[in-house]
Every structure is written in C-alpha cells, then in structure tokens.
C-alpha cells in the first residue's frame, strides 16, 4: 500500500500494539505529528521536555514489560533526549525513539536545528538508523522494535529526515524480520547447565545473586521456585528489587555499596555465586579482587559480553534466564534444602548482628521512617519510582517490595530527574496502581515542569520529597571523605514546593510530623491529583551501611549504635 513516511510511522506503531506514546513536536517531525492528530490508534502524552518524554517511556516500559515509544524533533529536541537514551541503554530498557531530522538535501549544511543525531546516539543505544528512503521505513521500524525487545533489551533510535516523512512509498509491515547478523542466544547450553547444577550440589555455602535481567526476562516466578526448591539464599541488586517478596525467608536483602551487612557478608563468605542476569557492577562488588574471593562463579546472562567481563565465570551460561532456570528446575531434585541449613543459620546471625535498620528521632522525621510508612500504608497497591541519591537508597532498603516491576529506578546511569516522568509512565501503564515517586529536594527540580503534563493528562503521581535541604548523597561523601567541606551541596534556598505544585494545578503538603505525613498521604491518594509531599527530614542522616568506593564488600561502615539516654 502506498503512503507517506509519516503515515508509515503511525501504521507501524499501531501494528506493534503501541497504546501510549510520549513526545514533543517540532519542525522536523511535524509531518508525523500531523498524522498523530488524525489517528485514533494510540494516545499521545505531551511531556514538557524531551528528556521527560524518554524517562516516561522508560517508566511505562519497566512497569508494563512492553517497548516504550517516544517521538521527538531534531536538533535540541534530540539532544535533550540523549540523557534518557543513555539511561535506557545502561538499564537495558526496550525503547523505540523516533526523531525528526532536517531534510536530506540539508543534511551536512549546519541547517537550522540540525545535529548529527545518529552520531550522538551511537554509543548510548543498542542500535540506531538514519532512514534515507521511505521505502525502507517499514522494515526499519519493524527491526527497531524487534531489536529493542529481543536479546538483552535496549533503546533503538530511528532518525527520519523531514522529506522522508513526506515521501510516498510502498508500505508492508507483514514482512518477517531477518537479520543475518543478529541472532540472540536464548537457550542455554544443556551441558553447561548440567555442570552448573552439579557444582551447586557439591557447594556448601551457595548464594543466588539476582540482577535486573531476571525482571527483563520475566523469570521472577521461575527464579522464586528454583530458590525455594533448593533452599539457597539470595541477594538482590538494586535493579532486581521485587524479584523476591520482602518477606521471603530466603531473601537476604540488597547487596553492594548500600547493601545490608548480612547480604554483603554472605557474598564475601560464599563458596559459589550463582549470578542470574546481574553484571557485577562496581557499586555491587566493591573491590573486585576481594569480591566473593573464595567462590566459584556460575554466570547466567543473555549478553555474552556481560559474562566474564569483570569477574571470571567458571561456569558461563549464555541464554535467557527464563529458559535456563526452567532447565535448572528440571535438574534440581537432587539438591536438598536441608544441606544449607547451617549456611542459612550463619546468614541469620549476620543479620541479627547488624540488621538493616535506623534510629528513630522524637524531634525530626527520619527519611527511612517515611519510606517504611508508605510501605505499611500502601504496600503492594503502589508502584515505586525514585530519583537518584540518598532517598533512592533508602527506598531500595526499606520499601516492602512484593513483586517484580513494582520498583522503577535509574540504576546504571544514576539520572537525577528520572523519577517523576518515569512515575507518570508507570501510571499510564498501570492506572489502577498508585504511582509513588520518592525523590529528593535536589532531584525533583530536574524535571518539575512535568507537573504540567501530570495535571493535563491526569497522571496523579504522588511525589514524596525527602527534603533535607542538601544534595544529600554528595553531602554524605563530603562529610565522610572530604572532611565535612560541603562544597555546593547546601540547598537551603528552595522553592515553596507546595505553591510550586499548586501553581501547575496540583496539590502540595509540607509535613514535619508522622501525623501530618499520614494525613497528607491519605488525602493525596483520595484526591487523585498530582501531589508534592514536601517532607522535612533530618538533615544529616547518612545512608548506612556503606562500603566506601573501591573498598572491600566486607569492610562496611555501619549504623552507629544508638547512644543510651541518661
């Protein structure tokens, strides 16, 4: 069928089952926006900044498991989106991002709003395309969706010059994707899997090290089953929160720089690391040469380049976690949970020695209390997004996660400003769930313009600002490692967050006490409008435990014991 390039974009999105697109129009993408105006196949959410459009698509994708879609214009529209692309690339989020480009005849002439978009997106996307002829557009979009969602997922960028969106050509979306050079390896080698099971059988202190790949692979229920049938305890990375329910006896906690004492000690004492979809990030391992020093390593990952990248895998298995774990389940009847009784006991003792906790204060709210309280009040009924910093770590440590895709955070890139737009995307994907964004007084200002989107499109995100008048995480490092020289981290000069929200048509609360917080949260949930809850918390609270950067996992700074009151 003959149609314009712009129409092809619409037809392709509809054929892919896309129901929500996040974007921002501009000169070079106007032909596509003209077709968006005419169609009824999907909803378009106009964000107020291109970066937010990508983060919203990420939130949508992380919550739903579907490919997130974003449409933006050339030049500054595209460069604004780059942070989002990089964020999605680092956290393996499947996205298709379509950008306008100046007409073909103007490419290379420094035309108005021209930038070499594919040149910029190359290192921060899984793949990218510059479409130079409308006859290729259908195939390119089909490939883009396929590449984004298959193998190790990631963002794919499609740059389309304005004249190509106007060009008429034949469109056929029924074609099979045939990429001779791209064939992800999804089935693990059965002999390697058998070997891995044998080594598990002969280990005394094994541990499951779960990463975000388990969630990407939709393998949480299989992984839960494997863990329960073998009785082997598990730690989760930041990205894997929710794979196991918080009350699961075999879940130790999160490991890494701000992991629990028990999780980090278990990782240091183990004799066999069973890594599922985790990539041995430096925030997880601390000093590499001391990481799980006496342990063998089984590493299951769909990305061969992740295996043995940082830690040598004795038993590498390249494949989709779901497939591999299903095969492991068939072989695991020889492994008896009783075998690891004393190992589990050891870990329990670690936890009893230094449990993951915090000290309450009668004068001021503690940020950790706020997170715990939201967990008590909303629990499973909320999806939890975060920005980046102290609040993110407290949310990861203290929220009672019950399911995968409940936890939406920027892990690899650590993007401040991610949380609010992502939480809007989450709300768009799962409207029946409450969408919470834990944020800080630093992060929230990096995309607060999205109040407008949230009001207009009725995406009632509840932003809980853990306000310590500091760029808290940097302040913490300055306190601990820079002799308390708090260089440019004091954020005492602040907007009135209540009025800020109200100025856009949202609602706001400033709370100092537990009672005020409970009331504000209850009202925010009932009113169902975008909310800022500005929570005044203890200024100098540190995230503990902490493994200093480059230190060994077992050398943690711990929560100081509470001083006895006289």
């Amino acid at each position, binding site marked *: 069928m003959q149609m314009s390039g712009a129409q092809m974009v619409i037809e392709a999105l509809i054929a892919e089952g896309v129901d929500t697109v996040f974007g921002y129009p501009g000169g070079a993408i106007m032909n596509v926006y003209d077709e968006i105006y005419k169609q009824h196949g999907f909803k378009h959410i106009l964000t107020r900044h291109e970066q937010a459009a990508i983060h919203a698509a990420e939130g949508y994708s992380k919550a739903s498991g579907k490919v997130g879609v974003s449409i933006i214009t050339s030049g500054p529209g595209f460069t604004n989106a780059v942070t989002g692309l990089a964020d999605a690339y680092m956290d393996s989020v499947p996205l298709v991002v379509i950008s306008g480009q100046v007409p073909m005849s103007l490419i290379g002439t420094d035309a108005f709003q021209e930038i070499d978009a*594919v*040149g910029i997106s*190359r*290192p921060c996307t*899984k*793949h990218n395309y*510059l479409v*130079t002829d409308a006859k290729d557009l259908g195939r390119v979009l089909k490939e883009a969706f396929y*590449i984004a969602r298959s193998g190790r997922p990631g963002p794919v960028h499609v740059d389309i010059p304005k004249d190509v969106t106007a060009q008429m050509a034949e469109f056929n979306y029924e074609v099979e994707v045939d*990429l*001779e*050079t*791209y064939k992800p390896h999804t089935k693990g080698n059965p002999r390697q899997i058998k070997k891995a099971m044998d080594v598990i059988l002969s280990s005394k202190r094994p541990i499951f090290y779960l990463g975000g790949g388990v969630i990407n692979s939709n393998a949480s229920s299989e992984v839960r089953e494997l863990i329960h049938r073998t009785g082997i305890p598990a730690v989760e990375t930041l990205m894997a929160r929710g794979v196991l329910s918080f009350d699961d006896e075999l879940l130790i906690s999160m490991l890494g720089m701000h992991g629990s004492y028990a999780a980090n000690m278990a990782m240091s004492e183990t004799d066999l690391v069973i890594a599922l979809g985790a990539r041995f990030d430096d925030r997880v391992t601390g000093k590499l040469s001391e990481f799980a020093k006496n342990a063998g390593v089984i590493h299951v990952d769909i*990305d*061969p*380049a992740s295996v*043995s*990248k940082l830690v040598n895998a004795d038993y590498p298995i390249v494949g989709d976690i779901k497939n591999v774990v299903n095969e492991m389940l068939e072989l695991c009847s020889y492994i008896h949970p009783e075998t690891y009784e004393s190992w589990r006991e050891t870990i329990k003792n670690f936890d009893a020695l230094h449990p993951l906790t915090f000290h309450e204060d009668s004068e001021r709210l503690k940020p950790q209390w706020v997170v715990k309280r939201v967990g008590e009040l909303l629990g499973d009924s909320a999806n939890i997004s975060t920005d980046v910093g102290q609040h993110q770590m407290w949310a990861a440590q203290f929220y009672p996660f019950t399911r995968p895709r409940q936890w939406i955070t920027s892990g690899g890139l650590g993007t401040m400003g991610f949380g609010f737009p992502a939480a809007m995307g989450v709300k768009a994907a799962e409207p029946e769930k409450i969408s919470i964004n834990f944020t800080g007084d630093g992060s929230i200002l990096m995309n607060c313009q999205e109040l407008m989107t949230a009001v207009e499109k009725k995406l009632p995100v509840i932003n809980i600002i853990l306000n310590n008048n500091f760029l808290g995480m940097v302040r913490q490092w300055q306190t601990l490692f820079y002799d308390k020289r708090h260089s440019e981290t004091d954020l005492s000069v602040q907007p009135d967050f209540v009025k800020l929200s109200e100025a856009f048509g949202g609602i706001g609360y400033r709370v100092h006490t537990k009672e005020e917080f409970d009331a504000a949260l209850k009202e925010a949930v009932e009113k169902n409008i975008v909310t800022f809850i500005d929570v005044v918390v203890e200024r100098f609270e540190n995230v503990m435990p902490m493994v200093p950067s480059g230190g060994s996992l077992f050398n943690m700074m711990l929560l100081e014991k509470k001083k006895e009151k006289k």
Partner: protein
Amino acid sequence: MIDNNERRVVSVIVVNEASVLSRITDLFSGRGYNITSLTVAPIPDSKYSRLTIVTAGSVRVIEQITKQLHKLIPVLKVYEHTDLVEKEMALVKFPITENLSDINALCSAYNGKIVNVGDNVIIVMVADEPKRVDNFLSVIKRYNPKEIVRSGSVALER
C-alpha cells in the same frame, strides 16, 4: 592473571552499510581499547565488508573486544587470529639521485619493486609481514626517503 599487552589481529565481517565503520571505531575509543591499524574493503560479490584490526591487549581485553564487536548489530563474524598469514604494504618516495640499483635490490628482498619513475623522484612498493616492513623502513633511511606511507595489515587464518 598476567596483563601482557600482546599484539593481536582481529578480523571482523560486517554488513556493508552507512556508518558501520564508526560503530566499530566508536566502540574501540569508547571502551578504551586502541587500534594500531585498521584496513577495510568490501568482500567481492557479497553485501559484506571485511575489516582487519591490529590491536593490543591482555587475553581478557581481547575477549571483551571480540564480544563487544559481536554485539554490534551489523557485525556478522569476529575472528581473533592465532595462526595467520599477515601482509602489509608500504609506498616510499626517493629522490632520483639516490642509488637506484641498491634500492631496487632491497625492494626485491621485501617482495617489492620500483612502481613509478618521475623526473625527480621514484616510488617503490614493498608488501610483506609487518615486522619485515619495519625492517625495510629502517634500512632505507640512508637513501633519504622523502615520504613513506604504510597500509594497515590484512590477514587470513592458515
């Protein structure tokens, strides 16, 4: 593991399409690997091109390079050569006043010859293993070469 930065030759078969070369070179610069030399040309009667990349790194680094290259969508195959035939070419320009028979004799010893004679200069070509090309270029210094150009390596597994 001992981190010996050995010289390695890697061949990469890629789809012959726009910007594929920048994908490869971006990967090297972005991940901190170095390229000693790079040769690329289309493979006859196919939609593919072949790159020969000379690089250096430890076993682990080379393994990562290979895997990361393979991850690029237009990359079909990556070979890390162990037992290979490797050749490189050099063109050198000499003043015509130098001892041409000496130069010619040297060229012959390195699979080369005089390929162009002008009013003031001659151009010679040699094609040999990279180490031997090094040798040649060091030996001919005494004949006042005016300009030297080296190609990258091309290699085939035995």
